[in-house]
Every structure is written in structure tokens, then in C-alpha cells.
């Protein structure tokens, strides 16, 4: 049953003495079909899962939705499964804590990013679906979704579509999600190759990224001519960004030196050039968390270091000749 409650919405700033009231509906679907029907009928309804973004908006009176659509009663959103080709279909409502504990080995980059989200309490509630729904350029999982070549599954009563993460973000806190659609899952390719994520903040917990960076190695692409390196930049542009020039440079560099079959330590000049190209791909602004110049500098450092760590891991896996 999708139960609708019609209630009174008070203006909390004048909670005790105001007659100002506002109707709000609390929609509580118990299946995906009910949820999609509800969203089709009420495209204005604000979806809420872990609540770590939506409730802040409500608590501070920044948002006054006419309806809330509670997704926590839909069991399938909180499940993950194998896709059959080695990948993972991650339900939009799986918490960060569960990604870390259940998928830490199989989705190393996403698990690293998940460990940097908020605090234990926030990770117990927050979800990748929520990160995507908010589409903040500072969202911690976006760089990993870009670097790993993940796709976002969107559903409505009109049908299902899958959008590459790269095409999902269209502006500051804006995405291609249509008003009648819900984010149902994220599809992540399987990998055994190293991935890394790193984030700049004023402390290790409870930090919105000043900037962040993810890298994923794709050695299985070496024979195809496709990019063998995936990248993602966070909190340094209107949307999360790929550093395509940096990917192209490193792909060519690794191929020319036959690095995939006989990996050796990367020249410092290669790591620095990669870092510079990542910094050049960003379009940061000055804001309360940091200056544009600092973000660019920090991204170059993050890119250089994460490449070093990921390549070191690859070398260890493949050979002991890498020093």
C-alpha cells in the first residue's frame, strides 16, 4: 500500500504563534512499482532515503516540498547483486557502511570514497543514490563513478534507462534525472585492477571535500585501444569532471613503454605531467572551503600521488621488478 497522509506544514520560524499552515503529503511506497507510480503522479515529491541531505534542507527551512517520497520501505533499493559479467548492480539505497563492509574488496575505489563520507552515523544512512540525487560537485562518490566507468540506472513508469555517469551531471546540483524518475541503481564494472581515491579536507571526518580525485586502472582495455586509465575530479568545477587529456596522456605513455605487460616504476616526470593535466582539467572557484588556486595545486598533488599508489599496486600484482 502506498499510504498518503495529508498533514499540516507549519512555518517553524513562527511555530508556536502562526496560523500559517501548509499541506504536505508523506508518501510511503512499499515497492518500486508503487514508488514510480507515486513519482509519476507527484513529480514535485522530494525523494528521501538516508535523509542526510534532505533533512538538513527541511530542518533549516530551505526546502518546503509539497510531498516527501520515503524510499526506505522499498527492500530492493537496499540490495546489491552481481550483473553476470563481473560487475555489480548497486541498489541506490545501499548505505555507505554496507558498501565498505560488504563490497570493500570488489569495489575498492567506491569503498575508499565511502570511508571518507561524514561520520559513522552518516555512513549508516547515506547512500550513493542520494549522492547522485543531490548531484553536488563535492559529492564524494562522483569521482569514483567517473573513473570506473559506472552507469546510473533511472526508472519511471515510462521505462528504464541507463546513463553513463559522465553524462549524468549537467550543472551545479543538476542532473539529467527527469521529474518523474527515480534513481534505482548504479552499475559498476567488475575489476581486479587497482583504484584509488583521495580527498582534501580540514580533518579526516565530517568534511565536505575541498577537492577530491579518483583514478582507476583498466589494463583489460590495453588491447582495445580504449583509455586504460579512468579519472574523476570532485569539488573543482560545476560538476564532477573527467580529466580526459590526462587519461589520454597516460594511456599513450603506458602503451608506448609496454608498461602493462612488464610494469616498471613510472618516471617522476610522467607522474608530474599527469598531475598537471588533471589540474588543468579542473575549473575550480574560490569559495569558503578553499581558493581556486589551492584546489588546482592540491589536485595536481592528489593525481600524482594516487597514480603512484595505484601503479605501485599494479606492479606488485604483476611483477617484483618494479622498484
Amino acid at each position, binding site marked *: 500500500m502506498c499510504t498518503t*497522509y495529508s*498533514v*499540516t*506544514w*507549519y512555518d517553524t520560524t513562527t511555530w508556536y504563534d502562526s496560523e500559517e499552515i501548509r499541506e*504536505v*503529503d*508523506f508518501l*510511503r511506497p512499499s515497492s518500486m512499482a508503487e514508488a514510480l507510480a507515486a513519482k509519476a503522479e507527484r513529480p514535485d515529491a522530494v525523494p*528521501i532515503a*538516508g*535523509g*542526510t541531505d*534532505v*533533512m*538538513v534542507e*527541511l*530542518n*533549516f527551512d530551505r526546502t*518546503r516540498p509539497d510531498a*516527501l517520497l*520515503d524510499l*526506505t520501505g522499498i527492500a530492493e533499493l537496499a540490495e546489491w547483486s552481481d550483473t553476470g559479467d563481473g560487475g555489480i548492480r548497486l541498489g541506490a539505497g545501499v548505505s555507505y*557502511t554496507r558498501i565498505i563492509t560488504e563490497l570493500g574488496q570488489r569495489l575498492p575505489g567506491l569503498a575508499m570514497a565511502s570511508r571518507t563520507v*561524514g*561520520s*559513522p*552515523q*552518516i555512513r*549508516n*544512512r547515506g547512500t550513493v543514490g542520494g549522492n547522485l540525487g543531490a548531484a553536488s560537485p563535492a559529492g564524494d562518490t562522483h569521482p569514483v563513478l567517473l573513473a570506473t566507468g559506472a552507469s546510473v540506472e533511472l526508472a519511471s513508469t515510462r521505462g528504464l534507462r541507463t546513463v553513463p555517469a559522465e553524462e549524468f551531471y549537467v550543472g551545479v546540483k543538476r542532473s539529467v534525472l527527469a521529474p518523474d524518475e527515480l534513481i534505482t541503481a548504479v552499475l559498476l564494472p567488475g575489476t581486479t585492477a587497482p583504484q584509488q581515491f583521495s580527498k582534501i579536507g580540514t580533518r*579526516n*571526518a*565530517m568534511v565536505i571535500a575541498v577537492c577530491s580525485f579518483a583514478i582507476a586502472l583498466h589494463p583489460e582495455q590495453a588491447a582495445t585501444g580504449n583509455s586504460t586509465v579512468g579519472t574523476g575530479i570532485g569539488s573543482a568545477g560545476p560538476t564532477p569532471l573527467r580529466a580526459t587529456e590526462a587519461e589520454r596522456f597516460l594511456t599513450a605513455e603506458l602503451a608506448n613503454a609496454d608498461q602493462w605487460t612488464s610494469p616498471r616504476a613510472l618516471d617522476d616526470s610522467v607522474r608530474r605531467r599527469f598531475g598537471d593535466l588533471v589540474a588543468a582539467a579542473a575549473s575550480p572557484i574560490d569559495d569558503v572551503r578553499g581558493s581556486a588556486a589551492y584546489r588546482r595545486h592540491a589536485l595536481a598533488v592528489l593525481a600524482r600521488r594516487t597514480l603512484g599508489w595505484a601503479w605501485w599496486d599494479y606492479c606488485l600484482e604483476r611483477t617484483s621488478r618494479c622498484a
Partner: protein
Amino acid sequence: MRLNLTVNGEPRQADDVWEGESLLFLLRERLGLPGSKNACEQGECGSCTVYLDGTPVCSCLVAAGQAEGRAVRTVEGLAEEGDLDRVQRAFLEAGAVQCGFCTPGLIVAAHDLLARVPDPSDGEIREALAGNLCRCTGYEAILDAVRTAARR
């Protein structure tokens, strides 16, 4: 709307609940359980930490309606039959309380840690309490209290 949920083992009902309000507001203002504290209302401080179906969460970030049919355990529900929980006793013994405002949230977070990790390292304690702010900055005594509780 009317809500039914279990709080500290007891079935509870609340009427005229406003859907935009948080579980924290429901607990404090409607169910008479002011142990969970309201400070930041944005999940930064951890003072409102409660168990929701056994998982510690910031109750300010749970919509009241999302608690329908669920089980909530607050700091008031940790003492059993009048005996303080070992974490509560350890906080008293270690003097891990200054103004006391952050204490309920820290106790619930520490209680959860010790249920999952019986003998936590200092790193694990710090990580588990990373979402709980003490603005009196009494963290050393708090860490002592958690170490003490773990030894029991």
C-alpha cells in the same frame, strides 16, 4: 499523522506528527525523551545519536515518518532495570563529562562501538567517535572512558 513505533522496547504512539519534523523532534517534544540532544540539526555534531533498528544514526536526519513501525533505542534505554550501562558508568568514573551536552550521543556511539568491537584500538575508538563533537574539548577523558568500558 499518527505514528506507531517501538521506543526503548515499548510500543509508542504519537498523534498530529508533522511529516517534515525529525525523529529527534518526535522523541524530545512528543514522546518526552529529552536525552537525545538537539544542537546542529545537520548531522555534524552527533549529539542526537540513537539506534534505529539497531544502527546508530543522527535522529535529526531521520524524518519522523521514516520511523513508522521501526525500533528506536535512545540513551534513556541503555540502562537496564535501573543499572547504568557499562559505558555510562565508565563516563561517570572517568569524569568524561563537562557541560554534558554531547554526552548522550557519545555514549550511544561508544555503546555501539563496543557491541561491534569488544577490544577497540585507540584508532578504532577515534574513528567511531569521529561524528560526535565535544565543544568543551574533553576528548581525552572520553577516550579514557571508552577504554575503561571496554575492559569490563
